């Protein structure tokens, strides 16, 4: 599935990081285990990474590593969302969700004053789905589906896939990079790497919280 790969050697050459750093980051889970792709080569075995993800991750780490400790970075990037909580009044100031999405989603949830990470994550997914013009009642289905079935604390390497056939939408949670074949009348309208979405949100939330 993953097409564009970069070898470990190339990563070190291009980014100027050392073996020590690379292995330390692996150990701290700042670079996910699943990105280390082993392939046989003429020298035996060689490790490859998904090129774009890896290079942009290293950029992010380099930018952040002066301000945060390795353990803090590990918290950002680890699949388990930390105890991020945002007070309902503060949420608009983070500029992640539009007013419309916020009110749309909160009416579907039991009233609460503090939003936990999974809620904010689900809402930000709705925000993204809105941009590709998914009808409102389908958004509602999606939000409730995520609310009930998606537990970011437990399953992290999932992909959210939306299919459309005529007026019908189908939402699915699939293991990351799983192959999906659909008939020619159906159309894949949406595909989100949830782990990546999660990391992005975690970083935005932390950064916009008065750093």
């Amino acid at each position, binding site marked *: 599935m993953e097409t564009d790969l970069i070898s*470990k*050697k190339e990563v070190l*050459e291009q980014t100027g990081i*050392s*073996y*020590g750093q*690379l*292995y*330390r980051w*692996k*150990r701290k889970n700042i670079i996910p285990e699943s990105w280390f792709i082993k392939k046989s080569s003429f*020298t*035996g*075995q060689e490790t490859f990474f998904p090129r774009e993800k890896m290079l942009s991750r290293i950029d992010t780490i380099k930018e952040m590593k002066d301000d945060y400790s390795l353990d803090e970075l590990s918290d950002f990037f680890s699949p388990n969302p930390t105890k991020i909580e945002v007070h309902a009044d503060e949420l608009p100031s983070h500029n992640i969700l539009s007013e419309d999405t916020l009110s749309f989603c909160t009416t579907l949830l039991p009233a609460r004053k503090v939003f936990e990470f999974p809620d904010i994550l689900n809402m930000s997914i709705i925000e993204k789905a809105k941009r590709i013009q998914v009808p409102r009642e389908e958004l509602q289905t999606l939000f409730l589906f995520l609310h009930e079935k998606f537990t970011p604390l437990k399953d992290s390497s999932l992909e959210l896939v939306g299919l459309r056939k005529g007026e019908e939408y189908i939402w699915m949670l699939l293991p990351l990079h799983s192959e999906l074949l659909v008939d020619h009348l159906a159309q894949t309208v949406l595909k989100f790497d949830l782990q990546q979405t999660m990391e992005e949100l975690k970083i935005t939330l932390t950064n916009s919280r008065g750093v």
Partner: protein
Amino acid sequence: MNTVEKKELHDLKISGSGTSGGGKFDAVKISGSGKIVGDIDCHELKISGSGTISGDVKAGYIKTSGSSTIKGNTKAETITTSGSSKNEGSVMAAEMNTSGSSIFSKDLIFKTFKVSGSCKVEGRIQGGSIKASGSLRVEKDCEVETFSSSGSVHIEGLLNADRIQIEINHESSIKEIGGETIVVKHHNSNGLIKQMVNFFLQKEDYLFSEMIEGDEVYLENTKAKLVRGKNVVIGENCDIDTVEYSGSLDVKQNSRVGEKVKF
């Protein structure tokens, strides 16, 4: 006001042969043959005969010196084992010491770990520092901050640590090694008995590895397919197929390096 809450915890003592259903205790002591069927939450667990716990264990301090089996997951501040111990669940401890024979069927997580007997881990190891002087066998990855060993080590996955110090005095094998500083040295013992044993077992004091990657690498008595690093020193008795380096390379006599690539 709070006196009702302040219930004192009781001790559980099994000496002779006995069975308990588990629970919350201050101290748990098994000195004959004891069985605990259930979970245990206690400050102190001591097993000196034969003990089996079929549930999870949460304890401040665990000491076993006979033969013990814990079937559930274990969490403790300090674990010291000196007899034969078996953990069928995962084990998490701040400080671990094993000096007898120990088997961990799942993952092992700790801050410090001292091994001086024989230890087999069927899962992965994660933690702060390991000091191994007996025999250590790991079936998956071993990821720690510092690793030092002087006995025999077999790791079937990746050994990943900032500082790796391996003293070879028995045949050892580590599939892959990665870290910042990697030092492999031969321990020169001219013991006649050891030479005889090695001769009969057809073993030699080498570290076998497929790949060794680090910033500073120093190797002796190592046979590897690929060594990569910034500054690499290939000391005595090495047989390396390929060395790739970006800084300096120094190859001593009595060593063979098939191909040297500077990048």
